[in-house]
C-alpha cells in the first residue's frame, strides 16, 4: 500500500461506511432517497456538527474538550432567559453568550497550558461549571417569543419544492468550511497538528505552543456557544438540559471521521462524514419505526470501536517501517 493511500485510509474507510449505510437505508426504506431527508441530516444535527468542528481542532492538538455540551445548555437557557424575561436585544444576548463560551474556552486552555494540567480534568471542571450555571439560571424551559428569533427559526433556504435548509444547517455548513480552512490552510491549523503530533518537537521548532493551545480551546468554546444558539433556534425554546452528553457524541463523530484521538493526525472532511454517518443511522431508525432509538447509540458504539482499532492497526504498520 502506498504511504499516501495509507495516510488517507481512515478517511476512505469513513466514506465507505457512510456510502454503505446510506445505500442500505435507501434500499430498505421508501422515500429515504430524497433531497428532503438529505437536507434534514444537516438541520437535525446542526448543534452536534458545529460543536464537532471545534472538537476536531481540539483533538488535532492532542487535547479534549468535555465542556461543549454544558456550554450548549448554558447558552440556550441564558440567551432565552435574558431575551424573554429581561428583554435584552437578541443580537446583544447572542454576542454575550458567544463571549462567555469563548472566554471559558480560553481560560481552560490557559489552565491546561500554564499549569500543565490534563485537558480531561480542566474541561470536566468547565463542564460542571457551565451546566451548574445553566441550572442556576433556570431549570424550566423558556419558550421563544421574540420576533427576530421566530423569523430566524422559521427561515428556510429552499432547495427543491420539498427540501429546504434551515438557518441552523447553513450555520453548520459555514462552520465546516471555516473549520476546514483553519485546519488545513492556516499556520494555526498546522501548528495544532504539530502540537498534537509531538509537543516536544513543536517547542523546539519554536512554534507558539501556548497561544495555539489557548486559541484552540477558545475556538471550541465559541463553536459550542454557537451550537447552543442553533439548538435553541431549532427547538424554539431555551432549556438548561440542552446538549447533555453532546460532547461525547461530538468526540465519537470526530473519531469515526478518522481523526486520531491522541492528536496530530486528521481531517475536517472526516468530521463531516462522521456527522453524516451519525445522522443516517438516526434517520434510518426513525424511518423504520419498529427499532428502538437506542440502536443509534449501539451502532455508533460499535463503529467507534471499529475505527479505534483500525487506527491502531494503521499506526502499528507505520511504526514498523
Amino acid at each position, binding site marked *: 500500500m502506498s504511504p499516501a493511500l495509507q495516510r488517507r485510509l481512515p478517511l476512505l474507510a469513513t466514506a465507505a461506511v457512510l456510502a454503505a449505510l446510506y445505500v442500505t437505508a435507501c434500499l430498505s426504506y421508501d422515500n429515504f432517497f430524497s433531497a428532503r431527508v438529505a437536507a434534514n441530516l444537516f438541520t437535525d444535527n446542526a448543534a452536534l456538527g458545529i460543536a464537532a468542528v471545534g472538537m476536531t481542532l481540539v483533538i488535532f492538538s492532542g487535547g479534549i474538550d468535555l465542556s461543549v455540551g454544558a456550554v450548549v445548555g448554558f447558552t440556550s437557557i441564558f440567551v432565552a432567559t435574558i431575551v424573554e424575561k429581561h428583554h435584552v436585544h437578541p443580537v446583544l444576548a447572542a454576542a454575550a453568550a458567544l463571549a462567555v463560551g469563548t472566554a471559558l474556552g480560553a481560560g481552560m486552555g490557559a489552565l491546561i497550558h500554564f499549569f500543565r494540567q490534563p485537558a480531561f480534568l480542566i474541561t470536566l471542571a468547565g463542564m460542571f461549571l457551565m451546566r451548574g450555571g445553566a441550572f442556576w439560571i433556570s431549570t424550566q424551559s423558556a419558550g421563544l417569543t421574540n420576533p427576530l428569533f421566530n423569523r430566524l427559526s422559521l427561515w428556510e433556504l429552499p432547495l427543491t419544492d420539498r427540501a429546504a435548509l434551515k438557518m441552523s444547517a447553513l450555520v453548520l455548513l459555514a462552520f465546516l468550511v471555516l473549520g476546514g480552512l483553519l485546519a488545513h490552510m492556516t499556520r494555526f491549523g498546522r501548528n495544532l497538528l504539530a502540537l498534537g503530533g509531538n509537543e516536544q518537537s513543536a517547542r*523546539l521548532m519554536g512554534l507558539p505552543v501556548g497561544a495555539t493551545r489557548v486559541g484552540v480551546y477558545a475556538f471550541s468554546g465559541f463553536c459550542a456557544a454557537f451550537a447552543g444558539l442553533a439548538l435553541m433556534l431549532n427547538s424554539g425554546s431555551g432549556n438548561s438540559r440542552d446538549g447533555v452528553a453532546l460532547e461525547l457524541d461530538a468526540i465519537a463523530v470526530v473519531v469515526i471521521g478518522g481523526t486520531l484521538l491522541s492528536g496530530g493526525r486528521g481531517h475536517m472532511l472526516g468530521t463531516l462524514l462522521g456527522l453524516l454517518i451519525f445522522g443516517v443511522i438516526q434517520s434510518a431508525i426513525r424511518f423504520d419505526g419498529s427499532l428502538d432509538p437506542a440502536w443509534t447509540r449501539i451502532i455508533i458504539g460499535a463503529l467507534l470501536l471499529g475505527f479505534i482499532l483500525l487506527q491502531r492497526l494503521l499506526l502499528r504498520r507505520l511504526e514498523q517501517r
Partner: protein
Amino acid sequence: MTSAPPLLTLRGIGKKFPGVTALDGVDFTVRAGEIHALLGENGAGKSTLIKVLTGVYAADAGTIHLAGQPVRPASPKDAERCGISTVYQEVNLVASLSVAENLCLGRQPGRLGFVNWRALRRHARAALARLGLELDVDAELGSLSVALQQMVAIARALDLSAKLLILDEPTASLDEKEVADLFAIMRRLRGEGLGIVFVTHFLDQVYAVCDRITVLRNGALVGEFATADLPRLALVGKMLGREITAPDHAPVTVATGTNEPTAPVLTARNLSRAGALHPLDLDLHAGEVLGLAGLLGSGRTETARLLFGLDRRDTGELRVKGRPARIRAPRDAIALGLALCSEDRKTEGILTNLSVRENLIIALQARQGATRPLRRAEQEKLCEHYIRTLRIKTPTAETPVKNLSGGNQQKVLLARWLATRPALIILDEPTRGIDIGAKAEIEQLIAQLRADGLAVLFISSELDEVVRNSTRAVVLRERRRVGEFSGDALTAPRLMHAMAGGHQAHG
C-alpha cells in the same frame, strides 16, 4: 594548519551544578569549513558544553564568539537566530506531518496566517536539493527511515541560515550505508564553509570525516588536535586519561582464579539487535567474573539489556545451564535465575520513596508471585542478613532508600537481586557515582560472589576496575566483540589497544 579565522570561539567556559563542576574553563574553537569532533567519556562535559552552545544552559563563566561577534544564546530558538543549529539523535520533528511541512513549520510561506502550499512545497524541495536529497515532499515523515528523517532535520536546521551545525550523535541508530550518506552531506556542507560540530561514540567515524578533535574529560579540556596528528590509541588514552604504555610490558595485576571446565551458566550465540549490537557470542561460567570493557556506546549496556530480555533481540540463541532459554522479558530472565543491576540506579533500579526493606524484597516477591506473600518475619530476617553481610549503612530497615548514600543504595540494589539467589548476576557500572570506600566494598563483594559460585558479568568503563575484578574480559568496540583476555594477558594496556582498535598505521 589552516589559517581560516575561527568561526566559533569559546574561552574559559565554566558551568557548575549543585555539587558538581560540569565544565571548568573549557576552550573550544571551530573554524569555518571544518568538521570538528567533540569527544569524551561519560561525565566529560560534552553534553553540558553543547547545551551551553544551544542556549539550554547559561554558562557561569567564559565567553562565546560567533563570527567575531559575542553571543550569549538564551534559548534554542535564540541560538538558531544567532546561526547555531542543532540536530539531535532523537529526531525532533513531527512524524505525522509531511516532509514539506516539517521543513517549513513555523515559517510557512503565505500571508495573513494562511499557508501557501505551492510555495511551501517549492521551498521544501529547494531545501532538500541543497543536501542533494530527492524525496517526495508530500510523504509522511514517519514513513521514512530514521536516517532520512535525520537528513530532513538537517535540511530544516540549515534552512535557518546556520553558520554552525551541531550534530549530536546523529549516527547512533544508522546503518553503515546511511552513515556514509550522512558523511557525504557533511562534506558537502563543509565545502560550503559551514562549521560542523560532530559528537559521536564511534572512533572510526571520527577518523573518517573529522578534521579536528577536541577531547574533554571530567569537565575540563584535554586538548585540541588535528585528526591526522593523533593516532587512535593516543586518542583513547586521552579520553580515558591514561598514559600509553607498550602493551606487553605491563604488570599483571589480576589474581587468576582456577577455572574448571564446567558447563556455562549462560551461553549466548549470535545475539544481535539492529542499531544496538552486532552478532555476539558469549559464555559465562559459574565462579567467574567476566569483565565487559569498551568505550561509551560500544554496546556494553546493550548486551546486558539483550541478555536480560529488556530489549528484544533480532537474532540469537540463549542457553541457561545448557538448556535453550526463552527470554522475552525480564520476568523470564528472573525465573531462570538471572539478575541485572542496571547502570542507571536512580531511574531503573532503586524505588527512592520506599524503605530499604521494601526495596530489598521486591524482586523476590515478584518472583514468588502475589499469591504467596513473604511473611513479615521472613522479610525482616532477609533484611537483617543482607544489611549485615553487605554492610549496608542504614539506621533501620524501614528508612527510605533516598536517605542513603549512593554506595549504600547500590548495595540495597545488589541485595535485592542476591535475595532471589540468582545463578548469574549482571552488574552494569556498579561503582559509578559512589565514593572510594564503597567502591572497594563493592569490589570485595564481587570477589565473594565469585567464590560463592555465581557467574558475574561485570561492566565498567574504568579499565583498572575491569582488570582488578575480572577473571576474564571481553572487549567491545562499535558494537562488536573485538577481543578476549584472561590470565596474564588481561592488562589495562591490552584492553585499551583493543578498545581503540583500528590499525597502528594511524600512529
